[in-house]
């Protein structure tokens, strides 16, 4: 039994060390982080939109973590200042992302605040960004012969618009865009908010 004891004991010690430094210490260190004064909680429409962002897997191509100016030209690209832990106070689950197949979205609401543009871009990205490889999301929209009262009609370049009728944004598309427009972390930070 001596071998088994040292094996499982050692294995436990190793995973404990790893968990301590990568989970427990960050937990302790970040537990008391307060939200910056300029950051607002999500509205319920924005939260639904955030869920839609997860449902469509946006996070696999878009990060939400601009890097520092000293490291990369993220700021020059209009993606915003380097983010800090406090910026994510209301984010659950986190959506930091690991890929930039598309641009960083942490400040897309400030960079591209047009509802029309965002809806049209979700319907057909290539209508707005030639060469884009982003998926189109036609199933979040509806093509109608005539819009009904209260419908949000999507404005598209003529070559991308349907031959007959109009494209109307579905509720999920509207929620998703309201989440995207809420992504605005351009507020200034105090020294204490910059944090660890």
């Amino acid at each position, binding site marked *: 039994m001596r071998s088994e004891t040292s094996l499982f004991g050692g294995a436990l010690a190793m995973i404990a060390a790893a968990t301590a430094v990568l989970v427990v210490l960050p937990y302790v260190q970040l537990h008391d982080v307060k939200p910056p004064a300029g950051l607002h909680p999500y509205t319920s429409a924005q939260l639904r939109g955030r869920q839609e962002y997860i449902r469509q897997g946006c996070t696999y191509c878009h990060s939400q973590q601009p*890097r520092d100016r000293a490291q990369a030209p993220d700021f020059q690209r209009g993606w915003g200042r380097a983010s800090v832990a406090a910026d994510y106070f209301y984010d659950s689950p986190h959506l930091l992302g690991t890929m930039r197949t598309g641009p960083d979205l942490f400040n897309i609401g400030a960079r591209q605040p047009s509802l029309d543009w965002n809806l049209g871009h979700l319907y057909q990205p290539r209508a707005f960004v030639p060469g884009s490889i982003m998926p189109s*999301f036609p199933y979040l929209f509806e093509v109608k012969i005539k819009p009904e009262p209260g419908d949000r009609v999507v404005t598209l370049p003529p070559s991308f618009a349907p031959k007959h009728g109009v494209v109307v944004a579905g509720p999920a598309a509207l929620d998703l865009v309201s989440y995207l427009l809420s992504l605005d972390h351009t507020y200034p930070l105090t020294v204490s908010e910059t944090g660890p």
Partner: protein
Amino acid sequence: MNPVVILLPAFLIALVALAVFIWSMHRGVFGHDSAGARVIFTAHEVGHTEEPAAPSASRAALQSLVNATTGPGEPLDDDELLRRVHADRSSATVTFVFLSCAIGWLILGSFAGLTASIKLHYPDWLAGYEWLTFGRIRTIHLNAVSYGWASMAAFGLAMWMLPRLLKTPLQGRRFALLGAVLWNAGLIAGIGSLAAGMAGGLEWLEIPWQVGLLLVAGGALIGIPLLLTLARRTVDHLYVSVWYVSAALFWFPILYFVAKVPGVHFGVEQATMNWWYGHNVLGYFFTPLAQASIYYFLPKVLGRPIQSYGLSLLGFWTQAFFYGQVGGHHLIGGPVPTWLVTLSIVQSIMMIVPVVAFATNYAATLKGYWGTLLYSPTLRFIALGSIMYVLVSLQGSVEALRSVNTVTHFTHFTIAHAHLGMYAFVTITFFGSIYFVMPRVVEREWPYPRLITAHFWLVVIGMLVYIVALCIGGWLQGLAMLDAARPFMDSVKVTIPWLEARSVGGALMTAGHLVFAAHFLAMVAALGPERSRPALFGLGPEMDHA
């Protein structure tokens, strides 16, 4: 918190480990051929090759090649061989169930991956199907190949190796079978949830936690036969493969449970937890299980103990220590505490210690025996997989350097790295192991040896195209993104030809998998030329001394 408080001990431990390593090399502690390395052989078996995957002519050629270097072996002990046959039979059903499911998931996962890959250069292809959108089918691919294919192949191989390593029949088979049922149920429900858009949002942890409980329970049940069989072992020494298997089966439920427990993790802490899990599911689960296979099958086919047994144990412990703490390198430049990123970079570099230990051992064991790769399908796959382990680890260490990471982070280079690890190392190693194991499981030889060759070249060429193309494409993408003078779209356009090449590589790999699955089915259904000879099962021509 003062970062020095955390970093200093880490540095000290790392330095001490390095010192022990150098000292032990100097003192020759890990000398030639210690007794532990011989545990996997019966009395007088050293010098006798074992390669059930090869046709008899190749087996004879393999044996004569080994004879030429080692000298002919002594006669074998029939009783011990008979006990091994019993050990093999005890695990046959369990292993068969796991490997069959694994191959099913491999096929599903391959097509999901290929679909995702094609969509990156034909973005409007099948765009009307929500469940096929890139963000979902890519996630289905990851979950199907990692939790379906790789996990279940690893479980099947572990269950098969344990009775041989512990020299006793597999105990508690019902638990393993129940575990297989729960694991598959969890995966079917989990992948269905992903297709329907019910994803948890965290990479590697997308399966909803309510469903994930099935994976925790299944994983824990699969651990029970390990404990029961350990309790009945007839060997004094636990061979290094047992260490890897035991630790991996012990670590996985802990990792998954801590990661999935709801309501605990928040904001940036959740991100560090995410990469603690995301990297440790590799370092604490897939890597050790694949290494267990390498440390068993490589010496077993050659009939030659691992060159430096102590080095393999040192590799085990240094890897367990350093690998566990590297996850933070996924967040370099992110909004996480600086000390954490620095620590992870340091440990990523320290991973060179276990990797060099492994590589030295591997090269020394195969030295003078490279010709055996001509005759042994198992060795061809496993030798290649081992080289890829060394490559992916060294690439990972370099990639963690801040200067390199600044270019490669957020690009397809990372995807290439992931496939160098999970495919070129883990999957290739499992292919080789399955070729060895299946003839023992179904007591029949592989019916069409040429299909093994076809499988090998399809997946090897496919993966080389895949990995090389994405490394280049990812690097160019990173450079374009770092150049503020170039518009962002340049970083997209520059990748297109490489993404197309990746689809070609992926299609070749998928074709290889179809060949493999068809061959597997033919073997199970006893189709093809009658090649089974009772002599194979314990008393093959290589052991035909009577």
